C-alpha cells in the first residue's frame, strides 16, 4: 500500500495566506495590551516579526533559516535581560512569550504549528488578566477569543468565507457558555497560591506603605485608583467622621516615620461610646497585609487580627480583592493601650533635629502642667500658623519639622501630622502618627462609598490620661476644608489634582458613578468569586457544607446534562421536515402493519418488487408510489405537484 498523506492531519496541511492573516489579527489583539506595557523596542521587534511572516506568506518566499531565528531569539532574550536584569518573573516572562509567538510564526509551515500558535494566543489572553481584570478587558479578550477560534475553524475548513467561520466560532462560544458558567460556579475552588507568586506581580500598585517621609503621601494622593469601597447598612457617617485607619507609625528618625513591628491584641476592648456603623468593605489588592476600618472597629473580621494600636491585619498579604464585614464606633478615641512600654515608645524623639520645634514645645510644657492644656495650646498654634495645604510641598532639608512650621509653611497631611506629633512628643505627651484614608465619595447610584488613593491621609493620636488615645487631625485644624469638602477643594487650583476629582467635571463624574456601580458589582460577583462565595452560593441553593466530592459530582452531573442537551440540539437540527420522506415513511408503515416491513438496507425498487410479489393485488399502486418516490428523491427538479401527488397516493393507499 502506498503511504498517502492524510489531508485532515494538521501536520500535513500547509498554512495559507488567510490562515496567517487570521493568526496575525489574533496575535495583535492579544499582544496589544502587553505591548503597551512592554519596552518600546520589544513592541517594534514583535511587529517586525509579524510583518515579516505576512510578507513571506504574500510573496511565497521561504521561511528564514533556523540559525537566523536562533540569533533573533538570543538577541531578544538579551534585550529582555538588559531591561529587567532577569528572564523570569511576570513581565519578562510574558514579554518573552510574545517574542516566542512571533518567532514560532516564522518557523510555521503547517496547520499543526499554526494551531499551537492559536493555543498560545489563548494563553496570552490569560496573561493579560495578571494586570487587569476590568470589564473592558474582559470584552476585548472575548473579541480576541472569538478571533482565535474563527482562525482555528478556518484551518479546518479552507476556502470558507470568514463570515461563516466567525459565525461558527460564535455558535461554539454560545454553546460553551452554559458549561463555562457551571464550571465557574461549581468547580471546586482552591485558595491560591499553589507556589510563590513572582516578586514583581502587583509591583505597580500604589498605596500606603509602612513608613512615611515628607512627600510620599502626596505622591500616593495623585493617584485616582480605588483603594477600597465600603457599603453601609443604613446611612453612612458624615465625611468629617470617615477616618479609615491604616498603618500606625511610631518610630521617627528625624525624617521618616516607621511602623515598627506590630503587636497583636489578645482581646479587643469595647471602644468609647459613639454612633455605631455596620458596613462591609471590598478592599483592592495592595500587596500588604493591612486592612482598613472606620475608626474605631469593635472587632476584627474573620481571618484578620487586630494590633494593640488598633490596626487590622490580614493573615496573608492582600493579593486579591477581599471583602469583609465590620462594625465601628465613630468616637474619635482609639483602642486603649496604656502600657508603660507603649507610652515610652510614643515619647521617643531624636533630639538632634528640629531644635526650634523642641524649644517651642518645651516652652509650652514649662508654662502649663496639664496635658490637655498643652494640647489646646498646640492646637491653637497650628491654627494660627497660617499653614497652607498643597499637593506640591516644597522640598525640605534636614530639620523637616522646623522648616515646615517656620519657613516654608506649606505641606501635605504628612507634614502636618508629622510636625504635630513631633511637637506633642517634645512636650512630653505620648503621640503617634496614623495613616489611612479620610473621606471617600458616596456613589449616588448604589450609595457605596468609594475611597481612592487620592483620599490618603495622615493624622495624629495623642494619649491623654483618663481619655486614652485621642485623634487630633492637624490638617483639619489648619485647613478645615480638607475634611469637610475633600482634597480637591482644599488645595490651590494650580495643584495637579487627579483629573476626575476636579469640581468642574460634574457631568463626567455622574457618568463615572454609573460605571463604578457596575464595576463594583463586577468586582463583587465575578472577580470576587472565591471559595467563600462559592460556599455561600451552595448554601443558598441548599447544599450546606459541600465538600469537593459533592461539588465534583454536581459538576459532572450538570456537565453531562448540558452535553446531552447539546446532542439533542444537534440531532433536532438533523430532522428534515421533508414531505417526500415523510410520505414514503408513512407508506412503509402501512405496509409494515401487513407484515411486509421494509428492511433497513432495502431500497425503494427492491422493496416495491418484494411487496408486489407478496401482495399482487396492490402491485400497480405500489409500483406507482415507488416510481414517484424514486423520481422525487433522486431525480432532478422535483415539482411541487409531484410531491402532492405522492402524498395523495400514499393517503389513498388502502390494504384490504
Amino acid at each position, binding site marked *: 500500500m502506498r503511504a498517502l498523506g492524510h*489531508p485532515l492531519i494538521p501536520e500535513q496541511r500547509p498554512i495559507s495566506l488567510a490562515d496567517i492573516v487570521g493568526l496575525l489579527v489574533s496575535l495583535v489583539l492579544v499582544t496589544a495590551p502587553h505591548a503597551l506595557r512592554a519596552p518600546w523596542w520589544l513592541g517594534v521587534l514583535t511587529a517586525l516579526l509579524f510583518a515579516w511572516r505576512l510578507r513571506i506568506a504574500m510573496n511565497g518566499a521561504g521561511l528564514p533559516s533556523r540559525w537566523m531565528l536562533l540569533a533573533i531569539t538570543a538577541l531578544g532574550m538579551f534585550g529582555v535581560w538588559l531591561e529587567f536584569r532577569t528572564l523570569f518573573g511576570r513581565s519578562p516572562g510574558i514579554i518573552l512569550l510574545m517574542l516566542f509567538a512571533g518567532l514560532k510564526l516564522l518557523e510555521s509551515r503547517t496547520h499543526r504549528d499554526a494551531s499551537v500558535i492559536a493555543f498560545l494566543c489563548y494563553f496570552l489572553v490569560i496573561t493579560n488578566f495578571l494586570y487587569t481584570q476590568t470589564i473592558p478587558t474582559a470584552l476585548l479578550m472575548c473579541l480576541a477569543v472569538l478571533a482565535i477560534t474563527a482562525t482555528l475553524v478556518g484551518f479546518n475548513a479552507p476556502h470558507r468565507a470568514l463570515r461563516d467561520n466567525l459565525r461558527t466560532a460564535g455558535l*461554539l462560544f454560545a454553546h460553551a457558555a452554559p458549561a463555562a458558567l457551571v464550571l465557574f460556579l461549581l468547580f471546586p475552588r482552591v485558595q491560591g497560591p499553589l507556589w510563590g507568586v513572582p516578586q514583581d506581580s502587583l509591583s505597580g500598585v500604589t498605596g500606603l506603605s509602612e513608613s512615611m517621609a515628607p512627600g510620599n503621601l502626596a505622591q500616593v494622593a495623585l493617584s485616582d485608583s480605588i483603594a477600597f469601597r465600603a457599603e453601609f447598612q443604613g446611612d453612612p457617617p458624615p465625611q468629617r467622621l470617615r477616618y479609615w485607619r491604616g498603618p500606625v507609625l511610631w518610630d521617627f528618625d528625624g525624617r521618616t516615620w516607621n511602623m515598627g513591628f506590630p503587636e497583636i491584641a489578645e482581646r479587643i476592648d469595647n471602644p468609647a461610646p459613639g454612633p455605631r456603623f455596620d458596613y462591609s468593605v471590598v478592599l483592592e489588592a495592595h500587596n500588604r497585609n493591612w486592612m482598613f476600618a472606620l475608626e474605631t472597629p469593635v472587632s476584627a473580621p474573620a481571618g484578620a487580627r487586630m494590633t494593640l494600636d488598633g490596626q487590622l491585619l490580614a493573615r496573608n498579604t492582600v493579593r486579591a480583592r477581599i471583602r469583609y464585614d465590620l462594625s465601628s464606633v465613630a468616637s474619635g478615641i482609639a483602642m486603649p493601650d496604656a502600657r508603660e512600654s507603649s507610652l515610652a515608645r510614643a515619647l521617643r524623639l531624636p533630639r538632634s533635629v528640629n531644635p526650634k520645634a523642641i524649644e517651642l514645645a518645651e516652652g509650652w510644657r514649662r508654662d502649663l502642667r496639664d496635658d490637655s492644656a498643652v494640647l489646646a495650646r498646640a492646637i491653637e498654634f497650628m491654627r494660627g500658623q497660617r499653614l497652607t495645604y498643597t499637593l506640591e510641598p516644597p522640598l525640605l532639608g534636614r530639620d523637616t519639622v522646623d522648616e515646615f512650621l517656620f519657613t516654608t509653611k506649606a505641606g501635605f497631611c504628612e507634614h502636618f501630622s508629622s510636625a504635630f506629633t513631633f511637637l506633642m512628643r517634645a512636650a512630653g505627651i505620648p503621640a503617634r502618627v496614623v495613616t489611612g484614608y479620610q473621606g471617600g465619595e458616596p456613589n449616588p447610584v448604589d450609595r457605596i462609598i468609594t475611597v481612592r488613593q487620592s483620599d490618603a491621609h495622615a493624622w495624629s493620636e495623642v494619649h491623654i490620661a483618663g481619655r486614652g488615645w485621642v485623634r487630633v487631625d492637624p490638617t483639619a485644624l489648619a485647613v478645615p476644608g480638607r475634611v469637610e469638602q475633600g482634597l480637591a477643594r482644599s488645595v490651590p487650583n494650580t495643584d495637579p489634582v487627579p483629573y476626575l476629582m476636579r469640581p468642574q467635571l460634574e457631568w463626567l463624574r455622574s457618568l463615572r458613578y454609573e460605571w463604578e456601580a457596575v464595576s463594583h458589582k463586577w468586582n463583587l460577583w465575578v472577580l470576587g468569586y472565591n471559595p467563600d462565595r462559592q460556599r455561600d452560593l451552595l448554601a443558598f441553593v441548599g447544599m450546606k457544607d459541600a465538600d469537593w466530592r459533592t461539588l465534583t459530582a454536581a459538576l459532572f452531573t450538570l456537565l453531562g446534562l448540558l452535553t446531552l442537551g447539546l446532542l439533542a440540539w444537534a440531532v433536532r*437540527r*438533523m430532522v428534515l421536515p421533508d414531505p417526500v420522506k415523510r410520505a414514503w415513511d408513512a407508506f412503509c408503515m402501512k405496509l409494515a402493519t401487513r407484515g411486509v416491513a421494509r428492511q433497513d438496507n432495502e431500497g425503494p425498487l427492491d422493496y416495491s418488487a418484494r411487496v408486489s410479489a407478496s401482495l399482487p393485488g396492490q402491485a400497480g399502486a405500489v409500483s406507482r408510489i415507488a416510481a414517484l418516490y424514486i423520481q422525487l428523491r433522486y431525480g432532478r427538479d422535483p415539482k411541487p405537484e409531484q410531491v402532492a401527488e405522492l402524498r395523495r397516493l400514499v393517503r389513498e393507499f388502502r390494504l384490504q
Partner: protein
Amino acid sequence: MTAGRTQPLPARIADWFYGFKPPERGVIHLGHRRVYIVPSRLGWIYATSLLVMLIGSINFALSLGFALTFMLAGMGLACMVHTFRNLARLTVSTGRSDPVFVGESARFRLYLESGVRFDRHSILVRHVESGAQLVILVPAGNLTEVPLAIPVDTRGLLPLGRVMLETRFPLGLFRAWSYVEPDSQCLVYPRPEFLPLPPSSGSASDGQFQTLAPGNDDYAGLRSHQPSDSPRHVAWKTLARSGEMYTKQFTGDSAARLWLEWSRVPGSDSVEQRLSRLTGWVLAAEQAGLHYGLRLPGREIAPGSGDTHRAACLEALAMHGRPLAAT
C-alpha cells in the same frame, strides 16, 4: 444473522464492533452508533494548555482566568458535539461504476447526502485499502458525488471495500470517523495485449481453423462508403483514383467472421497472458469492424459486433475462472 454464524469469529467481532455487516446494500445511514469520536493529537495539546491555564488561574487567583479556562473547556465540549454532528446521519449511496482494464483506475462513485439543514464541511472520504481519498463539502440538502479512483491490478469483479469517512471540523480537536462498506463493484477487464489478429475462419459452423491465402476473398464489388464502415474495407486505390470513397464488398460473411479462440492464442502458457491477448484481439477486432466470436473453455459467445457484444466478450474474459458474483 444466520449467515453471520458461518463467518469466522474475527470477522463477526469486527462486524459487531463496526455495527454493520458488509457489504451494505442500498442507502447507508450513518446512525449515531456508527460514528466514533476521539480527541485528536491537537485535542490533547489543547487539553494540556487548558490544564496549565487552570493551574495558573488557581495560583494567581485570577477570576477571569478561571472564566476563560472554563469557557475554553466548554468550547472543547461543544466542539465534540459539533464534530460528531458533522458526520452523524450522513447518507451514503453508490452509483454505477464503468468497467476498466487492469492497470487503469476503477472509478467508483459515492453519493453523500447531507440529510440536514447545515453544510457538512471538510469530510474526508478515504478508500481504506488503496488510500484513495478526497476531502469534500457536502452542502445542505444536496447530493454530492465523490469519485474514488482506485488503481486495479487484477481482473474480475472488484468490490469497493471499506471506505472511511472522517471529519475534524470545526476546531480539529476531535476526530470523528465511520466506516461504510457499500455494495458496489467494478468490473475489471484483463490488461489488453495487442498481437496481430488471427486470420478469419471460413465458416461459422465447422469451427475449424482454415488458412486462407490472400486473394481468396470473394470480392463482390464496391458500394458507397458509410461512416460505420471499417477503414480496412475502404477501397483506397479507387479513392486515390477518383477521389470518391467506396467500400469493398465481399460475398458471404467469411471475411468478417472471426473466431477468437482460447486454444489458438499463440505462444503463451499462463492463463492471464492468454486472457490478455484475447482481450487485445477483442479490442482490435471491434475496432476493425469485424464480426467476431469468442471461445473460452466452457464458454462460447457467438460472433457479433458492437459495444454490447464487445462488453459481453470482455466480461467473459474478465470473469473467466471466477465464481459468478451475485449482482
